């Protein structure tokens, strides 16, 4: 009797059967295949988005000589942090950043809260003029800001005939509170669609338990809208942060980001200017990206945020 070769023995062993039933299945193959495809797609798209950003970050560390040296493409020969320090210690830039942060955070919070209220009103209450008024929301999304900016300017020059509001952030705050900030109609629309699509049973239960409409909204409906709420908050923050039309009209003598970047663009000599500009752009974008990293953790499906069970 010849003994069974070792390799054959392995294929007859219990261990192999276990491995086979686990890994040599269609399910596993498609699972791995999908993971690889997903990785490739996401990596490619991320590369596509990050490439210009990446170039900017590299440029930030280049010395002046590197810009005229054709052999330098990615790794700078004369590594320097001077450019970055120049921008980050520039009082104009820091001041602009501070002012922009103040205005953007305030308007973003106001816009998000007010839009959720308005969106809920349009979604859940069948009052008479609902359709007509909601078409006004869509209209305000379509009308480009530059069309109504001159009348708005005149309006805020003497608001309600008394207040002189130009040169203060109050025009922006007033527009936000009334739901007419930058692309505010989109937020109202998002909230309205979300609330229309959420089940009615929760609200009915709340009404039966004696909640008023406002309490139902704040205690029941708003907590269930976390993902929309965060998305709207991020969008409004980002758009106010990079806004130039409204800011340049209303914040007359203020230092803010858009104005700072514009002056840098036109001021210094071309090469250094573009270097400073790329640093300033990265420094301007990074805070919002960091805030998003923090907030996106909450963008997950959870029973607590989805409200109704069953």
């Amino acid at each position, binding site marked *: 009797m010849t003994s069974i070769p070792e390799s054959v023995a392995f294929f007859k062993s219990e261990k192999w059967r276990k491995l086979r039933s686990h890994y040599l299945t269609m399910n596993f193959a498609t699972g791995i295949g999908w993971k690889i495809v997903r990785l490739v797609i996401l990596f490619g798209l991320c590369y596509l988005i990050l490439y210009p950003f990446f170039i900017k970050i590299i440029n930030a560390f280049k010395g002046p000589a590197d810009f005229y040296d054709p052999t330098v493409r990615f790794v700078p020969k004369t590594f320097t942090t001077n450019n970055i320090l120049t921008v980050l210690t520039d009082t104009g830039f820091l001041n602009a950043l501070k002012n922009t942060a103040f205005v953007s955070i305030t308007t973003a919070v106001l816009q998000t809260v007010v839009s959720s209220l308005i969106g809920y009103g349009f979604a859940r209450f069948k009052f008479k003029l609902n359709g007509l008024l909601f078409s006004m929301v869509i209209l305000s999304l379509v009308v480009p800001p530059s*069309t109504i900016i*001159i009348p708005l300017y005149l309006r805020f020059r003497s608001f309600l005939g008394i207040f002189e509001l130009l040169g203060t952030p109050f025009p922006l705050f007033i527009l936000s509170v*009334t739901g007419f900030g930058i692309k505010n109609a989109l937020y109202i629309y998002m909230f309205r669609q979300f609330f229309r699509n959420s089940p009615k049973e929760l609200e009915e239960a709340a009404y039966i338990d004696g909640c008023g409409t406002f309490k139902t909204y704040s205690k029941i409906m708003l907590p269930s809208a976390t993902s929309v709420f965060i998305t709207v908050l991020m969008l409004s923050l980002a758009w106010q942060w990079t806004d130039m039309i409204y800011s340049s009209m209303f914040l007359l003598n203020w230092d803010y980001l*858009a104005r700072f970047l514009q002056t840098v663009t036109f001021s210094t000599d071309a090469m250094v200017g573009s270097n400073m500009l790329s640093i300033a752009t990265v420094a301007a974008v990074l805070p919002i990206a960091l805030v998003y990293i923090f907030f996106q953790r909450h963008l997950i499906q959870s029973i607590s945020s989805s409200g109704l069970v069953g």
Partner: protein
Amino acid sequence: MNILNREAAMKPRKTKHNLLKRKNREGYLFILPFLFGLFVIFLPALFYSAAYALSTVTVKLDDVQLSGVGFQNFIDAFRKDTGFRVLILSAVQGMAFDLITVVIFSFFAATLLNQKFLGRGVARTVFFLPVLLSSGIIASVDMKSVMMEAFSSSNNTASTISSAFTAGGFNVLFDLKEILSSVNLNQQITSFITSAVDNTYNIVNLSGVQILIFLSALQSINPSIFESARVEGATKWEEFWKITFPMITPMILVNVVYTVVDSFSNPKYGILDYIDSQAFSSNQIGFASALSWIYFLIVIVFLGAVCGILAKRITYLD
């Protein structure tokens, strides 16, 4: 006496839906801030811009003077201004393309980002960046800095720009057009697909907001619906078409509306820049207002058509 009698006669009819009516009337409280903004800020501003569109506007020392010219500005926009017509036409064509590619792509990307995998937070943040990079001052500064680099350095900029602004490399890897035509695909479909691939960078940049909106919609689906579907033996395919897709149709509508508006105002087509240049450089505020009225009336017609087609296919739970 008479009035009292009439009130008494009406009473039973009134109480019928009284509770519901009173509840519905509270809706006005919720949209009160919007009503204030609408009547105090937005509509007057719109009214003024309509008045500008119907007149010649002269700005004198912070004061705006109008002298009415009727519909002359509108007639001029169509008869004399040849540039505007071309812009609008190219924008309409571009919009149709953008609408299809952006909505499909952003839906696909959002489903990817909604799955669980290592580094999801990083990937999501990267996909959020286009919202920032393609908006307002960042986009306009970016454009200028690319121009400056092109003019001032010999650093192989031409290739840098082309690789930064188109996907680049697709043509080198394989000739997509040839492959598609070798399988006898329709010429129009072929050109649609190739231009979509060539425009990958633009499409990714345009869909930042839509991806976010879809992502929030996907997350607001109640997981227990999937659970019960799984217990009933639904496959992933069925889960997608019977649960996920119907549940996010309201947000598809939002995305379609937003994409249409965003695409029309895209600097790529230059309509808004053209209107601004008429208003502020050429100092023809009246004419520019007429142009922007034409512009957004066209957008509204488009939105109406698209929403009319989609509206019946949207499912709401209410």
